[in-house]
C-alpha cells in the first residue's frame, strides 16, 4: 500500500463550496491544500446549470453556472492549489485519515490536518415518494434530466410532466421547451411553490405551462416506456381527493421534489448529523462534532443561492486553515445550543461558542416551515425574548438569515440556549 500523504487542508468536493473553501484556506496561510473531486472536472453542479442568475451578490453580475464556476477555478489554478479529479473518496475517519480511489493513482491515503466537507447534495428519488404504478422507463429526477441535456447532449423525451415545483424542475421546464419538447404541466403537492417567483414567471408563465398547485401524481402508467400519469387534487391534509383524478399522457416524468445533503462519508467519520437539515451539526466556525472536520455548502444544508454557498465555504476554509496551522485540535468549548422554535426549521449553526456570542455578531440561517405574511421572528435566550424582527413575507423556498448581536444580551448573564421562533404579528 502507498504511503500516507500528509496534507494541511483536504477539501472533499470541487464544486462551489470546495473551490471557495480551498481559496480561503490558501488566503489564511495553509500550505498544503488538496481538492478531491469525483467528476472529471471542477465546478460541481454549476457545470450543468447553464441558465443565468448566479453571482448577483458576489460579482454584481448575472452569470451562468459555468461562468461562476470558472471565476473560482481560474483563481484556484492561479493560486497553485492542486485539485485531483476523477477521484472518489471512500472513507474518512474521525482521525482525519482519508482514503480515496482513482484510475490515475489507484488507492491513496491522506492524513489531513483539517478536512472541509463540501460534497453537496443529491436529489430525492422516486423511491422516497412511494408513487404507485408501473416501473416504466422515462422517470428521472430533474437534475438527471438537466445533466442529460446540458452535459451529455441527449433529450430525455418528447412530452413531459414535472412533479414538484422546485427551481430545478422550473428551470428544466424552460430548457425542455427551448429544445422543442412539450411540457404538459408542473404538478405541486403543496398549495405554494418552493421555487422562486422569478422562475415561475420566466420558466412557466412565459410559455403558458400550467402550474397545478395542491395536486400530485397518484399513478404511473406504461409497460416499458411511460405512457402517462394520473394526477389528483389533494385536500388540506395533502391526501388525494377521490374523483379528482385526471390522466395526462406523457413519455417522461421529471421529479423535482427536494434535495438531500450527501453525508455518507461524514457519518463514517462519526460526524453528528441534524435530522432536519440532513447535514452535520456545526458550531459558528462550521466545525462539526469531530474536531478538525468542517462542513459547508449543500452538504451542510441546502442553499437557494450559490453566492451564499461561496460565502459560507470561505469561512469554513479559513477556519480549517487556522486549525491545521496551529495543530491544535480544538477542545470542546463552552457552547450555546441553538434551537428552532415554532414555524422555524433547520437552523445552522446549531451551536455557538459562548465567548463569540458575547463579543461578535453571529449569523443564523434557517427556513420558515410554511408561508407566512406579516410575521415576526422572535429570538429567545433561555426562554426570554431578546430580539424581534418583522418580516413581510416568509416562505420555505427562501432561506432566512438573522444576525445575532452581542447587544441582544444582558452582559452579566451567560446564555445557555438560543431559540428562534416565528409568530404572526
Amino acid at each position: 500500500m502507498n504511503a500516507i500523504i500528509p496534507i494541511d487542508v483536504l477539501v472533499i468536493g470541487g464544486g462551489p463550496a470546495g473551490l471557495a473553501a480551498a481559496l480561503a484556506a490558501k488566503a489564511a496561510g495553509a500550505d498544503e491544500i488538496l481538492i478531491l473531486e469525483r467528476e472529471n472536472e471542477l465546478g460541481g453542479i454549476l457545470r450543468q446549470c447553464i441558465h443565468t442568475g448566479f453571482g448577483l451578490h458576489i460579482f454584481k453580475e448575472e452569470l451562468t453556472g459555468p461562468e461562476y464556476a470558472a471565476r473560482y477555478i481560474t483563481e484556484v489554478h492561479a493560486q497553485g492549489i492542486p485539485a485531483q479529479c476523477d477521484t472518489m473518496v471512500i472513507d474518512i475517519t474521525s482521525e482525519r485519515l482519508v482514503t480515496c480511489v482513482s484510475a490515475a493513482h489507484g488507492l491513496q491515503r491522506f492524513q489531513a490536518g483539517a478536512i472541509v466537507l463540501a460534497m453537496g447534495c443529491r436529489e430525492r428519488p422516486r423511491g422516497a415518494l412511494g408513487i404507485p404504478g408501473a416501473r416504466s422507463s422515462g422517470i428521472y429526477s430533474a437534475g438527471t434530466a438537466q445533466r442529460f441535456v446540458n452535459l451529455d447532449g441527449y433529450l430525455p423525451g418528447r412530452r413531459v410532466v414535472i412533479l414538484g415545483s422546485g427551481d430545478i424542475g422550473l428551470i428544466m421546464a424552460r430548457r425542455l421547451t427551448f429544445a422543442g419538447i412539450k411540457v404538459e404541466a408542473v404538478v405541486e403537492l403543496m398549495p405554494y411553490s418552493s421555487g422562486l417567483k422569478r422562475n415561475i414567471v420566466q420558466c412557466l408563465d412565459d410559455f403558458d405551462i400550467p402550474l397545478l398547485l395542491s395536486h400530485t401524481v397518484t399513478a404511473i402508467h406504461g409497460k416499458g416506456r411511460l405512457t402517462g400519469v394520473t394526477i389528483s387534487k389533494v385536500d388540506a391534509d395533502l391526501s388525494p381527493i377521490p374523483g379528482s383524478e385526471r390522466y395526462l399522457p406523457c413519455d417522461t416524468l421529471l421529479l423535482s421534489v427536494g434535495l438531500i445533503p450527501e453525508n455518507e462519508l461524514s457519518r463514517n467519520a462519526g460526524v453528528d448529523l441534524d435530522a432536519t437539515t440532513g447535514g452535520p451539526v456545526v458550531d459558528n466556525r462550521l466545525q462539526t462534532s469531530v474536531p478538525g472536520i468542517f462542513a459547508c455548502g449543500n452538504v451542510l444544508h441546502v442553499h437557494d443561492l450559490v453566492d451564499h454557498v461561496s460565502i459560507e465555504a470561505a469561512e469554513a476554509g479559513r477556519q480549517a486553515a487556522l486549525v491545521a496551522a496551529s495543530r491544535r485540535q480544538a477542545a470542546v468549548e463552552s457552547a450555546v445550543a441553538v434551537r428552532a422554535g415554532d414555524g422555524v426549521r433547520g437552523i445552522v449553526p446549531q451551536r455557538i461558542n459562548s465567548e463569540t456570542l458575547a463579543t461578535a455578531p453571529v449569523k443564523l440561517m434557517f427556513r420558515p416551515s410554511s408561508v407566512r405574511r406579516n410575521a415576526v421572528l422572535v429570538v429567545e435566550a433561555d426562554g426570554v425574548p431578546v430580539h424581534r424582527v418583522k418580516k413581510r413575507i416568509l416562505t420555505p423556498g427562501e432561506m432566512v438569515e438573522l444576525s445575532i448581536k452581542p447587544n441582544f444580551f444582558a452582559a452579566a448573564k451567560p446564555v445557555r440556549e438560543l431559540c428562534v421562533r416565528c409568530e404572526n404579528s
Partner: protein
Amino acid sequence: MQAAPWVILFKSNFFLITMTTTKREITCISCPLGCSLEVSLADGQVVAVTGNECPRGVSYARQECVHPERMVTALIPIPGRTPPLSVRTERPIPKDKITDCLCAIADARPTLPIRIGDVIIPDVAGAGVAVIATRDLL
C-alpha cells in the same frame, strides 16, 4: 390579455375613464411576495397598476408590460464532442425575439477552440446583442 372597451376604474386616489384600456394580470417578481398585479394599458403605455404592495410593482409592470426582456441561454451541439457548447445572450433581449434568437443559435456552427466569453453571434435576431460562450471548449 383581456380587452375591456368600457372600463371605469374608481379608486380613492385615482379616477380614469377611457375607451381603449386593456388589462393584464402579471406576477411581480421583485421580491418573494409575488404580488398579483392588474395592469391597465392604454396605447401600449401603463396607465394604472393595482395589487402591488410597494412601488417596485409599478416599475416592474412598466418594464414587463411595455418592453419585457429576457436573458436567453442555450446549447450548441458540437459534433463528436461533449458537453455541448453552452451560450447566453450578453444582455437581456426583447421577449418577443426569444424564438428568433433560439433559431439563430440552432443554426450557428462555431469552430473550436472556443474560450469562455468568445462571441458566437455578434448581433442576434436584430436585437443588437451578442451571443457569447459560457464555457471553454478547446
